[in-house]
């Protein structure tokens, strides 16, 4: 093992061994060494407790999130019935004629996410299969860090790209497309998610043991056949996890849709229209100046709770899929 502090460590060792020699010369009474042991034990316990509390803190965060969203939503649901929340087709909480139907926001979220997934899942999978099964070593060594860099670009920059580059480009082909649209936001969101999907999918594929591929090649299968019929089924649990992560990212994405899809709640399934998503609404309210404790303030927690439940469903689904597809080689 190489370690730069080797020399320091050595000199420390020598010091310690010198001390030990001293200790051996004048005899230490047993009670003293016991006391030292006891102190050492207490110190160890304290440190372990501190570390344990740090780990437990993550559970506290989850509880705090759930408590905060549920408690504010409870107040909201005292004003608005659950039935109205789920069935009303208008979302206008800040107007005089207030309607509290979450459906328009959900439709915006679903449509933009579907557009994003239609881009990210196929392209991400193709890139992953190519990198894992086809690409020469050098290409993979360059492409992987490159994709990681792509995944690190701030979402607000992707929003700028969607609004000022992709929308004008789409308008060139479809002159009827409005300045804000779910299509443009969804496309860019899809591009944004590609690195996550491809990177996780590729990791899953690479963890498939080599002898499975070799067995397939030995029977005369091509690389493509091996990839599709052996590697993909064998890494299904990892691929499912990657897809689920992609879906949760698309559903929870905020800045791209806020900038490029407009802020008007709109119950539509047509991606060429502008529409607000759940996340857009939260941002829109936060940008304004709503007093703490007003019903408008509570609506963003109800919207947030809806969003959390949607992502939670996908997380649980991912967990189950991973269990179901888990392969034992």
């Amino acid at each position, binding site marked *: 093992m*190489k370690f730069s502090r080797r020399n320091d460590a050595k000199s420390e060792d020598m010091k310690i061994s010198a001390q030990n020699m001293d200790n051996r010369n004048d005899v230490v009474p047993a009670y003293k060494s016991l006391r030292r042991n006891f102190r050492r034990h207490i110190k160890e316990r304290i440190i372990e407790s501190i570390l344990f509390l740090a*780990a437990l803190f993550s559970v506290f965060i989850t509880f705090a999130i759930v408590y905060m969203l549920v408690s504010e939503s409870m107040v909201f649901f005292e004003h608005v019935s659950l039935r109205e929340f789920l069935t009303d087709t208008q979302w206008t909480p800040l107007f005089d004629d207030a309607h509290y139907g979450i459906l328009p926001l959900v439709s915006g979220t679903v449509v933009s996410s579907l557009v994003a997934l239609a881009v990210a899942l196929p392209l991400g999978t193709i890139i992953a299969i190519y990198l894992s099964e086809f690409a020469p070593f050098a290409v993979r060594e360059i492409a992987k860090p490159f994709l990681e*860099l*792509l995944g690190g670009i701030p979402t607000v920059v992707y929003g700028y*790209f969607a609004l000022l580059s992709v929308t004008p480009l789409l308008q060139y082909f479809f002159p009827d497309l409005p300045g804000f649209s779910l299509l443009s936001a969804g496309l860019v969101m899809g591009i944004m998610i590609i690195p996550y999907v491809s990177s996780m999918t590729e990791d899953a594929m690479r963890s498939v043991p080599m002898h499975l591929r070799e067995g397939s090649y030995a029977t005369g299968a091509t690389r493509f056949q091996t990839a599709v019929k052996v590697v993909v089924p064998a890494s299904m649990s990892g691929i499912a996890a990657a897809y689920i992560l992609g879906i949760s990212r698309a559903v929870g994405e905020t800045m791209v849709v806020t900038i490029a899809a407009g802020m008007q709640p709109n119950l539509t399934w047509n991606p060429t229209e502008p529409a607000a998503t759940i996340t857009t609404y939260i941002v829109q309210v*936060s940008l304004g100046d709503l007093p703490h404790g007003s019903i408008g303030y509570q609506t963003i927690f109800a919207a947030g709770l809806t969003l959390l439940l949607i992502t939670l469903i996908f997380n649980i689904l991912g967990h189950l899929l991973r269990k179901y597809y888990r392969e034992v080689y």
Partner: protein
Amino acid sequence: MDHDKNLTEIRMMIARHRRWDRLFLITGIVTLMIAMLIFFALIMGMVIDGMPRLTLDFFTSFPSRRPGAAGILSAWVGTTLVMLVTAVAAVPLGVSAGVYLEEYAPKNLLTEIIEINVTNLAGVPSIIYGLLALGLFVYQLGLGQSILAAGLTLALLILPVVIVATREAIRSIPVSIREGAYAVGATKWQTVSDHILPYSSAGILTGIIIGLARAIGETAPIITIGALTFIAFLPTSPIQSEFPFLSFEWLMAPFTVMPIQMFNWVSRPEEAFQLNAAAAGLVLVVMTLAMNGLAIYLRYNLRKKIKW
């Protein structure tokens, strides 16, 4: 006769399969090229629009109603200070939690709950953290729309990243190192602080940098806690010329950060402001790319150097 027919059929089948193989190879390369092309289009678009605005004045001016005079001084100062709070809060917590889960945790239900919880937290949308912070930090703890509240919010957000990176770095240290330490009479904590942490420090650092790079670009949670977008002043400097030389007033100061400044400019209808947005975006991208690049470099170098 029959035999020949079979042979040609098999040959055709092989040719067909090879065609598919080549077709996919080409599809794969083209897809990867498209992804790279889009990336360069994104960067080049911002370079063309934003480059002329990137003068020294842009970094030393406050935002302004006149697009030509506006700059990102308050934004980058705000980002720096918020990141400071985030790092100070997230690093000790995340590393401690990672060390506990990897070195101390007994195999029981509670440990499993903590582990599943960390995985799930990583999948929670960032805006949800913003709502938590709005309720908890801004109102219940009374921190207001301050640098402290924003820094803590982002710290919660990157905590799972730091924990997972710490665990992975520690997991790659062979058991023999620990056994060696125990054999000479070291306690658990001595083993961790003298061996485990130093050997995994580069891996942990990589994780911290990736976490902070993510935090720098996060916009949604900061908007949710209600951060102002027009800030034409700087918080009190943390370093004072008079005793006691350190001031913590800046923690409670209102602020803006780079992504918020950019969002503000993007949402203006005037084209001149969008040029500012491009310039701010360029600075932001360079910052995150540099941080991620550093992390990737560290990791690749590490993999080569360490041989247990």
